[in-house]
């Protein structure tokens, strides 16, 4: 069955370092993949979207890569700050459509220590 997986273990890093989070998916190749941030008790907040024909996307200290051969996306936060501590979710439409019937990964909790 189609699924999307993120490292369920928390990632602890020191302030100023680069955090790298992984998202793997199976089966269909999605038209695009999205990354969201979720703080406790809050709704997900959209961060970045990367399309199947894009290798890399950047926004300020954030960078996303998308390898459709490996069926993997990497999410990087450079010069991390304690305020970056949150759970990061990847999401895609596993039907391969450019749609919003999104399947979310379980998220990776990032803890940035000062």
């Amino acid at each position, binding site marked *: 069955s189609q699924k999307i997986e993120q490292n369920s273990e928390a990632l602890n890093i020191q302030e100023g370092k680069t955090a790298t989070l992984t998202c793997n998916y199976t089966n269909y190749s999605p038209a695009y993949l999205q990354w969201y941030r979720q703080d406790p008790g809050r*709704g*997900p907040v959209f961060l970045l979207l990367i399309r199947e024909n894009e290798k890399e996307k950047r926004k300020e200290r954030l960078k996303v890569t998308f390898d459709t051969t490996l069926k993997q996306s990497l999410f990087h936060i450079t010069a991390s700050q304690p305020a970056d501590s949150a759970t990061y979710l990847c999401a895609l439409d596993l039907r391969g459509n450019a749609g919003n019937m*999104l399947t*979310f990964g379980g998220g990776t909790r990032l803890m940035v220590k000062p």
Partner: protein
Amino acid sequence: EPEVTQTPSHQVTQMGQEVILRCVPISNHLYFYWYRQILGQKVEFLVSFYNNEISEKSEIFDDQFSVERPDGSNFTLKIRSTKLEDSAMYFCASSGSVNSPLHFGNGTRLTVT
């Protein structure tokens, strides 16, 4: 910045009762969604709504659930005859187009006792 608002933030109901969760999407958005997140689990798609009708729904969204856009601003999720397993955080979201990112509200925590 415009945002999606949801009310109430917390709803407690007894098993078997009906609840209505309310959402005000971003005003110029055309696509509306409900997702839910059971405590400690993944965010799950329930339903999408466009042009006053359901466009997609998941297996979770059975006859117990219904959605409605009763006026030009509100979008509601009704759960009939609630069950203990309906306890979850319910998120409303909206988007400007079918393939643009979602804007989520901060959810309604539903507790069924």
